């Protein structure tokens, strides 16, 4: 009896080893070879920073679609000379932000990291989803399994090479406008409290610690979003920021100071800002950054020639 179980146990272990080997092989085969869509990257703009020169990004901005619509690195460069990159993912999960930040620290050493916190409420932060993301970090096939759709045998011979460059430094530009017709006082006290889900809190803690470990300052941010942000969510993030001793800037509370016009500055009725709205937000944020973090103005620096070129292209594509 014991012998049978031993034999069966050995066979099961051997089977699991072969399976583990196959997982490793398929991970290698399906991992993106490039930060382009064809290379297997879901949203190339998110990791366009990998193509930039080492340690050239001073400000890393991470978050969901609110931030890649509502923050303009080229506007920040043009007005203040600060080098920034916005890495947003639609419906970003807090745990994905952690992975993205780790990728940043592989080639960049941002002095300031800005995290848009809408994702802790709107992202899929369920335990199962977070587990899947974590599993994907260690066994990449869980994360990149969908790349079978783009799989080419020829790509197996290629080494990872990042070639995608985003002229807008990650920003998603929308020039159309659709008026927000909801209440103007969407941030007024409703008395409804909200809590950050535990899984998102855990990921936030890791995010904060990563910044501390790499000597980067962290700013929690909320870009104006009239359809999903509330005073209850603001209070929850504020409480977290206070606990951690991190500055928190909620631009939903100062849309007038920002100069936001909800009839013209939103692309889809109050959820995402358009280019005009992003410019206003970035201008306001630039002043705040200049005042509190004093990053270097790189304009005229030959190491940042690419940024100068990109700004010219950006301005010609989207004249003010």
């Amino acid at each position, binding site marked *: 009896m014991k012998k049978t179980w031993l034999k069966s146990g050995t066979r099961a272990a051997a089977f699991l080893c*072969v399976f583990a080997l196959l997982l490793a092989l*398929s991970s290698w085969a399906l991992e993106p070879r490039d930060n382009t869509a064809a290379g297997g990257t879901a949203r190339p703009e998110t990791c366009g920073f990998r193509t930039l020169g080492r340690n050239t990004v001073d400000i890393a901005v991470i978050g969901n679609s609110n931030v890649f619509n509502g923050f303009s690195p080229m506007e920040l460069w043009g007005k203040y000379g600060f080098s920034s990159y916005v890495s947003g993912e639609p419906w970003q999960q807090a745990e994905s932000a952690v992975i993205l930040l780790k990728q940043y620290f592989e080639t960049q050493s941002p002095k300031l990291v800005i995290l848009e916190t809408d994702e802790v409420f709107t992202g899929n932060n369920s335990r*199962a989803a977070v*587990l899947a993301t974590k599993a994907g970090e260690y066994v990449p096939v*869980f*994360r990149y*399994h969908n790349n079978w*759709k783009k799989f080419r045998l020829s790509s197996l011979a290629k080494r990872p090479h990042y070639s995608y460059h985003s002229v807008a430094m990650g920003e998603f530009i929308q020039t159309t406008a659709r008026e927000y017709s909801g209440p103007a006082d969407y941030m007024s006290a409703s008395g409804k409290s909200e809590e950050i889900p535990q899984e998102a809190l855990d990921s936030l803690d890791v995010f904060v610690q990563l910044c501390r470990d790499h000597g980067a300052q962290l700013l929690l941010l909320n870009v104006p979003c009239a359809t999903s942000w509330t005073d209850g969510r603001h209070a929850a993030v504020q409480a977290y920021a206070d606990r951690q001793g991190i500055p928190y800037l909620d631009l939903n509370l100062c849309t007038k100071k920002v100069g936001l016009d909800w009839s013209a500055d939103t692309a889809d009725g109050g959820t995402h800002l358009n280019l005009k709205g992003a410019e206003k937000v970035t201008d306001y944020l630039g002043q705040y950054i200049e005042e509190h973090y004093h990053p270097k103005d790189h304009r005229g620096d030959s190491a940042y020639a690419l940024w100068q070129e990109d700004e010219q292209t950006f301005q010609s594509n989207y004249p003010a």
Partner: protein
Amino acid sequence: MSYASFEYLGVFLTVSLLVYALIPQKRRWLVLLSASCFFYVLNSWRLSVFLLAAVLISWSAALGIERAGAAEETPKAVRRRRRRAVLAAAVAADLAILVFLKYYNFLGGAGDSLLGLAGLPPLFPQLDWLKLPLGISFYTLEAVSYLADVYLERCPAERNPAKLALFLLFFPTVVEGPVARWGSTSETLFAGRMPDFRGCAFAAQRICWGMMKKLIIADRADILVNEIFNHHSQYSGLTVAFGAVLYTVQIYADFSGMIDVSLGSAELFGVRLPENFRQPFFSRTVTEFWRRWHITLGAWLRDYVFFPLSLSHRSMKLRKWGKRRLNPYYATLLPTARAMFFVWLAIGVWHGSGWKYIAYGLYYFVISLAGLLLEPLSARLCRLLRIDRTSRPYRAFQLARTLVFVCCGMMLFRADSLPVFWQMLRSVFAGGGAAPLLDGSLFTHGFDRHDLLATAAGTLAMLLADVLQERGVHLRTGIAAKPLPLRWGVYLALLLGLVIFGAYGGAYTATDPIYAGF
């Protein structure tokens, strides 16, 4: 906690199994009870009180039935009356909880509409806070069958309420069934036997197969099914028909897949649960389809609704009445039709509250009754036209006909309401509407051509397995008998296929098992 999640398979099931293996055999059922309580409370803790009520009602009533029958000093007729009264009261109490929680708002709304027609004020306020406890539609049927079986002396009443509680809330059955019977399940449920290595491997294979159906076919198809059904007015003809077929595939893969996970989970603990599917798409008639689809529900309704009704005094009278006026075939059909009406109505109502579900049940009633009524005519016609009803082409025609009826029924089941179903059905018969399928515009809503390919390949694999099983091949035993490289090749292909082609992760939204909503 969904069966198709890492939390269930990787943590809950694994830990439960380890503890189960470490505990002495005699006490193992307590591990199952604790795990089931934990599972239930984790998923539906606020509403656990209703389950507790069902356990207490069924336990005490079963003992009451037995005690009433054992009082030998009482005359037999009185004993019978008492036993029947206890049974009726307990079944009514179990059903009352279900009816109140599941149907109050619908019945109240319908009642108020009737009162409104009579010019009277509404009487039933809508209770938006009413929620359905997890698995109530399943464990209520199990509780009723247990009571009926004790009443019919098919099994003795259980003395230990904890054992009855385990039977009703056993975690592999509580979400989507199968509807287990006390008599056939209790023996293995409380035996505490561990399967041998081969048994464990078979159970794991069944779970993986179920996950394949759920993750590769059902969850992927869900994207396109939602697109077509939620924006049905933008589509017509072939595209709507394609949506109905795809939903039929989705619901089969989802429900049978989750049942595979349930049965595989139970097998890991040495518990044998009844099968719930037997290759339903090989049915020649819709009646046969329902004998192969959700078998345990059909069997429950057959044993506890159809037989009692068709053998009742009133049915006998109806048959006699028919014999005087009709030919023998139709005379026998009369009481059958009466019982069938209630069975189909119950099938419809069991799935949900609303006119749509009633129509769903009656849809199948009309088709199966029409089949029975036209049977003599059909037989005569076939004789006249010299059509061999046992021939392959005729069988293929029957399978295709059943498939059309089933897909049509599924369209009704999935449509938001009866008017929407009617609109969709009309658009199918209006024809055309193939453009979104052909020009690819249908595949731009998060479901691309690659997804279609993966769904088709998964469906093909599922059908192939069904074909083999229909031919009497026991797949797991068959594969286990093959040489090791081939055997491992199949298992590894299934596992790796699941990892690579499964619809999970950021690009997909995890969907709840469809039948968990009933």
